[in-house]
């Protein structure tokens, strides 16, 4: 046992980095689901964000422009989903799965000339004296700007959903689309906007992988991060701060097990990696038993198609 070789500050810092991509994707999907739409295409939108962000960053030599491009890339792909589900009234689940498959294939095509290319660096945010604080400086104040923007985004989504009129309309649409429609709200418009927001967030999450965490373009590099984000939304019972806690917990499990292994501690890696999914399955099981549904906060119209004639 050489636990002394693990530096808790570094562990905390690594945890925040590991959590950021899934948190970005999850917070976007949370808004989408709050509007009553289940988009299973998160993985596809993430990988499209990863590749468009990478390609644009390399061509403009700016990581920041790359991130903007990634958000747009994810959003464009999500518009396809919006077209299918909101205009053509297709099944959400099938359309979302198709979106993932399409995104994986398209990203491989787009990224063909970019394997082995080094992306421009994303500079660490200079926080001056904050970064000098012992322990906390290394753990919390030595990150790139995306880590902080993601936290700001979580706060923004929380504020939006719970304290703004627009947020309440979005929730109304998600809870009961017929009532919202009767009140004169544009259910499809609200949902389309939510889907676009979700696409942009997933795109950013993907770009965080290809531009900062790995940083390179490799086919299929998201390897299931989108599915983890989907699980996180359920795990968080559709609450923004809980999604953040869940993402940090998830990132923490990953980073901690790597550190414990490297330090020579014998741990059951398989079970640890499995644990977030197990908790999600438990949450899903509870949700499906009618009584607990309300307490878990699942949007009432989630995954129910809307047509004005209903």
């Amino acid at each position, binding site marked *: 046992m050489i636990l002394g070789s693990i530096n808790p500050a570094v562990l905390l810092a690594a945890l925040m980095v590991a959590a950021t991509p899934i948190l970005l994707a999850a917070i976007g999907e949370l808004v989408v689901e709050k509007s009553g739409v289940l988009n299973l295409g998160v993985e596809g939108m993430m990988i499209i964000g990863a590749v468009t962000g990478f390609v644009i960053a390399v061509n403009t030599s700016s990581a920041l422009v790359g991130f903007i491009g990634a958000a747009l890339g994810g959003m464009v792909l999500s518009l396809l989903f919006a077209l299918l589900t909101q205009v053509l009234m297709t099944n959400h689940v099938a359309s979302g799965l198709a979106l993932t498959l399409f995104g994986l294939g398209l990203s491989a095509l787009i990224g063909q000339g970019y394997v082995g290319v080094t992306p421009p660096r994303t500079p660490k945010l200079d926080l001056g004296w904050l970064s000098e604080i012992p322990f906390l400086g290394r753990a919390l104040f030595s990150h790139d700007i995306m880590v902080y923007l993601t936290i700001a985004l979580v706060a923004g989504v929380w504020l939006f959903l719970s304290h703004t009129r627009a947020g309440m309309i979005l929730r109304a649409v998600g809870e009961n689309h017929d009532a919202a429609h009767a009140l004169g709200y544009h259910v499809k418009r609200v949902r389309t906007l939510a889907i676009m927001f979700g696409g942009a967030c997933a795109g950013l999450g993907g770009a965080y992988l290809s531009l900062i965490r790995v*940083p390179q373009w490799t*086919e299929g590099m998201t*390897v299931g991060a989108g599915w983890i984000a989907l699980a996180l939304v359920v795990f968080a019972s559709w609450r923004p701060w809980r999604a953040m806690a869940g993402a940090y917990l998830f990132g923490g499990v990953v980073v901690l097990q790597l550190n414990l*292994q490297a330090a020579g501690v014998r741990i059951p890696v398989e079970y640890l990696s499995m644990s977030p999914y197990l908790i999600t399955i438990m949450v899903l099981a509870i949700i499906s038993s009618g009584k607990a549904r309300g307490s878990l906060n699942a949007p009432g119209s989630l995954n129910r198609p809307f047509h004005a004639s209903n």
Partner: protein
Amino acid sequence: MKRRTLLTAAALSLALGAPASADDPVKAGFIYIGPVGDFGWTAGHDRARREMQEHFGDALETSIVENVDYGADAERVMSQMALSGTDVIFAASFGYGPDVNTVAGRFPDVAFQHATGYIQDHPNVSLYDARFYEGRAVLGHIAGNMTETNTIGYIASFPIPAVIMGINSAYLHAKAVNPDVNFRIIWTFSWFDPALEADAAETLIEQGADVIMQHTDSTAAVRVAEDAGVMAFGQASNMVDFGPNAHLTAIVDRWAPYYIERVQAVMDGTWEAETAWLGLADGIIEMAPWNDRIPEELQAEADALVAAIASGEYHPFTGPINRQDGTPWLAEGEVAQDSELLTMDFYVEGITQDLPN
């Protein structure tokens, strides 16, 4: 009922098709665990496929399916290939073993070539593998000499004999030149997960490793090592583009000569199931060019080690070697049997970590 008719029809067309179609191209199908763009393991197999395609030209038709999971997916893909007239199927990952044998039982006229496997239930299943531990010995020798912190980080995939063998071989040869050397091993339980591999590399570097070895397929660790200013080895392909300073060398897989030989046998009608385990001597693996930062004397030593292994003069597992628990495994001068290596489930003495179950 319908499905049975279809299968019978397919089996009939296969049986009848073989002799009648001497001029038709032979069809070879490949299934891969990762994407051909992984620049590692799967890229190595696909490189060989393309080389083989060039060699045979119009006489051969190849098809690939990438990112195929073990289990039902693999079975479905291979059955589909067999039904569409594929003559020989290359299943390029360890975990396809049970699936290959299930499908091989159903299609006795199709030749199956399973990479790095050990299950051979049917006369139409061939196994082939490379002696990666020979290359690992060279990596260990270089790593033991190059490390300044005496800590070598190792990113391992699954605790299967091929991977354990590699760790042991690398450790023994690092230890031989540097008695203070210490291995830190992280198991990712995945062949391809760039983000996880990057995190693992960062963790190892943070804990003092200045040389990173990997038995996973992505290029992420080499990139992280480059950024952190430490050293690394590529996996299965030359990964120097991802870390021009960090990348010391790599074990490069060259399956093409073997693939060409086996497909030629299918064309000639002489194909028979076999178990092939080829190494440096056969050119199935080779070392990527040494990085210039490796001192010249060490480069010469590494060259000599490669030559000694290739000529059969030296075997990387030559006793005395003890197991991790201190019990003797190989006596002085004794050389490991292939069967012992292929079932290896223990670390050698000196590795401090425990092997996961």
